[in-house]
């Protein structure tokens, strides 16, 4: 029996029960009347019959009323109050949808709708924030940079001419340094509002690290932060924009210093040459269906990368599946429970073209295989069976390991809460309260992404954190770097 017709059946049963009770009572009364005909008068007999019939009807009405109240009025009431809450702007409203009736379906659809509305609202807000900060940055840059020119020029002018009065020269040095810091903040805002493609050149990463550290040495000393270097000898030059990577180093070290706080601590800076297999490390930055629809969804990310969005057709409920864009990793997410069983059709969410390959089977379990076109990486395939982790990409498998130059910046600070890890690189995400702009790590991420590199974070609360930046020696042309904003596809 289909659950959604259950309510009709239950109501039908209720009506039949009520009618049966009524009819039965009449029959009982009739039998009773025949048996006791001699003893009872006609009038008393009729009266009793009417009373019993009325009682039966009242009982069945009560039963019906209770059933309707339980099965219809209560869930409809919840829907109405839910609707009122949503109308009042509360997009976190969820109503219970446990039963398998049509009203349960309606409740599920309602919850789904509210969830999507909430998501859409968050995306709009985020896009708005980005557009605003872009405009703001341009305005701020122009307005602030004029007075800063005055301060910087006069201060540097005086500083040079007061070398014989060291106490004044020192004070002026502070003015110059802090003004230049303001300049960097304004530039950071501009960088964020329009991240520029890197001007790559063979770059000595160790040199970039040393230069970056030199820029902020004074700040670190003031905050009782010690630096511990472990820079690898004989690092090969890596194709990178030295200025941008220096900004990454500075951002990450300052971030580490903030995590350490006032108590003092140590920041470890390490560089190394590493090799990493394509599996588990290469990010798929282009995914198209056979008809060319873009399957990457910048609004739905797995980790920090846009997921590959496909539809899984199932027996009861279709599911939107967000596939992990890191090749060989299977942290897929689904909008509904993935059903076991034989039906596992996959389709493009836009044009509904089927994504399974007719001539291929999973090497591990024999189930059908779905594929997307991943640009320079050719075709990437996944097994369609729930729980099977088989994936394949001929281009990436043939490429084998890739060489990276690695910078690790670790600290002995307070660590990062697990729930914050996924949001760290979103613009305006800050755990520093008023202290942070929430842009530093977003810019950092954009720069590393623009280099075709990766950035990973390892952290446990109370155990410090380590940011690992890897820049590829031979870079596949990176797709345009988008910020890890929930839903914002590009920069304003």
């Amino acid at each position, binding site marked *: 029996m289909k659950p959604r017709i259950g309510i009709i059946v239950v109501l039908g049963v209720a009506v039949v029960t009520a009618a049966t009770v009524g009819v039965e009572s009449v029959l009982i009364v009739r039998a009773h009347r025949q048996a006791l005909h001699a003893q009872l008068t006609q009038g008393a007999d009729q009266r009793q019959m009417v009373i019993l019939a009325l009682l039966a009807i009242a009982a069945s009405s009560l039963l019906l009323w209770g059933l309707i109240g339980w099965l219809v009025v209560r869930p409809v009431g919840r829907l109405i109050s839910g609707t009122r809450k949503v109308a009042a702007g509360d997009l976190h409203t969820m109503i219970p949808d446990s039963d398998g009736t049509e009203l349960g379906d309606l409740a599920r659809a309602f919850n789904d709708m509210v969830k999507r509305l909430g998501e859409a609202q968050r995306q709009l807000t985020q896009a708005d924030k980005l557009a605003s900060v872009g405009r703001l940055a341009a305005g701020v840059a122009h307005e602030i940079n*004029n007075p*800063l*020119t005055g301060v910087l020029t006069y*201060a540097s002018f005086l500083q040079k001419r007061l070398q014989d009065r060291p106490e004044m020269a020192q004070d002026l040095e502070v003015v110059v340094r802090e003004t230049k810091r303001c300049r960097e903040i304004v530039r950071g805002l501009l960088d964020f509002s329009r991240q520029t493609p890197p001007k790559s050149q063979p770059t000595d990463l160790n040199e970039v690290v040393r230069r970056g550290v030199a820029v902020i040495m004074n700040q670190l000393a003031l905050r009782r932060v010690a630096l511990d270097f472990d820079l690898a000898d004989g690092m090969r030059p890596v194709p990178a924009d030295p200025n941008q990577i220096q900004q990454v180093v500075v951002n990450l070290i300052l971030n580490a210093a903030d995590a350490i706080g006032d108590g003092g601590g140590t920041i470890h800076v390490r560089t190394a040459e590493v090799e990493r297999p394509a599996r588990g490390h290469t990010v798929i930055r282009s995914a198209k269906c056979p008809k060319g629809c873009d399957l990457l969804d910048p609004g739905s990310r797995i980790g920090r990368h846009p997921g590959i969005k496909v539809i899984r057709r199932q027996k009861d409920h279709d599911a939107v599946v967000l596939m992990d864009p890191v090749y060989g990793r299977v942290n897929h997410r689904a909008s509904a429970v993935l059903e076991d069983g034989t039906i596992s059709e996959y389709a493009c969410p836009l044009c509904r073209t089927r994504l399974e390959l007719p001539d291929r089977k999973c090497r591990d379990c024999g189930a059908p295989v779905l594929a997307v076109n991943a640009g320079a990486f050719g075709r990437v395939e996944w097994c369609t069976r729930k729980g099977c982790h088989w994936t394949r990409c001929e281009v990436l498998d043939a490429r084998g390991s890739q060489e990276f130059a690695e910078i690790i910046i670790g600290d002995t600070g307070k660590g990062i809460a697990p729930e914050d890890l996924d949001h760290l690189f979103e613009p305006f995400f800050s755990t520093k309260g008023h202290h942070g702009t929430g842009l530093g790590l977003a810019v950092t991420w954009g720069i590393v992404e623009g280099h075709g590199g990766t950035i990973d974070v390892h952290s446990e609360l109370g155990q410090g954190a380590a940011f690992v930046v890897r820049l590829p020696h031979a870079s596949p042309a990176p797709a345009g770097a988008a910020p890890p904003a929930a839903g914002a596809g590009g920069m304003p």
Partner: protein
Amino acid sequence: MSERWDVLVIDDEPVVRDAARLVLEQEGLRVAVAADGDEGLAHEALDQCRLVLCDVMLPGRDGFDVVADIRARRPEVPIVVITGYATTAMAARALDSGATAFLAKPFDEEELLEQVRRVLERTDAAEKEGRS
């Protein structure tokens, strides 16, 4: 010519004009200033100077138009565009309009002098080459 100017600075922001003048005069250069494009184009210094510093966001006529007009009048004079909104697109547009170089605000004394020296050395070298 009774008076000779070395540099013409066009910027609507007094503090930028004054700061640039202070630094450049200290180097022995004679500096004329103008608050917008029209004033700059009307200034007698424009026909004499060896260098023009011009802001991009000027009241009235756009800095790029002003640069193009200066270029039309003085095809050989180096023009350094100064702007508080330094983007690569901005730099490209400035060079398209006829600017010689680009200096981002805020600059310090050394950065301004370095840019000015570099541009003047280049013109001096070109002049020497032209004469020989």
